[in-house]
């Protein structure tokens, strides 16, 4: 189902309702339209595994990278770096810092705003991500306007990983977090920007979680489930 493609390679994607996902670009060519052909070349723009949906209408390239590029509706972990007017400036690992409005929290009013300091950790949703503007965050769910897990993260530790690893951790079928959770109580928040917040009772448990994440990360080795179990057995927790 998936083959590895390099940037610039031709992708044979053709469908009446074609939808191009990340990693694909449609070229606009003068020659193609002059000859009256309706299909224009689709090329891949990154290296990765080429995937398509069952009816071949959705195509995308799944690759790995470490630098986050903001996209709307993604949950990210941010660090507050300063105030700006009515809101805050938050670092989410992208090229430009994101802005978070002071009222973008559940139940916030002008008199009742959350008390964030420089260095506070946040779990927020990217509400606006346009290439020409700096990204904007919100700390509540779009439809219900309730917190739904977004907001300030107190305590814990943030570990960095590659973007593919954070996508794997968000998949409920992935083995790592349930494996760790079966050993000791664990709280984790996974940001799509390659940051993971973990909170466990003891420091050695937190360190064990961070080391397991680094070991299973496809960018740093990509250990499988058996290897991870063996690795966990060697750590004294």
């Amino acid at each position, binding site marked *: 189902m998936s083959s590895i493609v*390099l*940037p610039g390679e031709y992708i044979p994607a053709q469908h009446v309702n074609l939808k191009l996902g990340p990693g694909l670009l449609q070229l606009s060519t003068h020659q193609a339209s002059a000859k009256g*052909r309706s299909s224009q070349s689709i090329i891949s723009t*990154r290296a990765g595994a080429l995937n398509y949906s069952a009816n071949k209408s959705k195509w995308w390239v799944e690759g790995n990278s470490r*630098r986050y*590029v903001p996209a709307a509706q993604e949950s990210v972990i941010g660090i507050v770096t300063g105030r700006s007017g009515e809101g805050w400036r938050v670092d989410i690992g992208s090229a430009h810092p994101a802005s978070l409005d002071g009222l973008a929290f559940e139940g916030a009013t002008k008199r009742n705003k959350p008390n964030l300091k420089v260095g506070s950790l946040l779990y927020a949703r990217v509400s606006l991500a346009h290439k020409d503007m700096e990204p904007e965050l919100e700390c509540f769910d779009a439809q219900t306007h309730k917190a739904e897990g977004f907001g300030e993260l107190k305590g814990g530790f943030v570990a960095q990983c590659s973007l593919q690893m954070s996508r794997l951790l968000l998949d409920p079928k992935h083995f790592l977090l349930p494996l760790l959770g079966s050993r000791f109580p664990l709280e984790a928040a996974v940001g799509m920007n390659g940051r993971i917040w973990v909170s466990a009772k003891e420091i050695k448990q937190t360190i064990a979680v961070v080391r397991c994440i680094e070991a299973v990360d496809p960018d740093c080795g990509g250990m499988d489930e058996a290897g991870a179990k063996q690795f966990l057995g060697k750590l004294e927790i």
Partner: protein
Amino acid sequence: MSLRPIKISFDALSGVDGSARFSFGATCTALASVSGPIAARLAAEHPARATVEVHVRPLSLVPGTTEKYLGAAFKGIVERACVLNQHPRTLIQVVLQALSRPTNALIAAEINACSLALVNAGSVPMRGVACAVSVGRRRSGSQTELVLDPEDESELLGGGCFAFLFGVDELPAESDIPPSKMIWTNYCAGVGASFSSAQLAQAEELASKGAAEVWIKMKESLQQSLLTGDSKMEM
């Protein structure tokens, strides 16, 4: 006529978004690292596209005018290879470290390492992969002949490095390898020699075959690193 054995490895340097090492044989190696899209200095920001900066570091001594010239040449190559308008007001910073003595083959290795590092970073969309090889001109009897990827450049009558961009531009060619276009060269005749445009075309033809081999090796090494998580590949 063939290239020296190519060695590619993705070293996972810390603090950067992508890195790669490329060698022709045992004596011509270059290391490249890429960070981007990151915040650009206000003076270097472009409102509609990303800014590209290429820093070249030689094996010995501090970077001088040659490195400045190569940096400007590679900047043009990177700007051709990447789609820059998806990340306006950002910076794509490429740092190249030469790990061998300066030759045309080293320039080719630097271009290849730069392309591989950009592909390894995966955060900047690219419209093609730039592959480069060096071609030399040497005397054989009373004629001059062209040599692909010469090991010893001291006895040549000229030569240079050719860079090709492998990417589909219009409709694809009927082959596994995307069509290539030559995008940069520094071919020159040696001291006291001269060359004709026909000879230059011959050199380009020979170099394009070599570059296609480089592309195939790049694809194999990326397939291996993406499928198995291994980061080293030797031919």
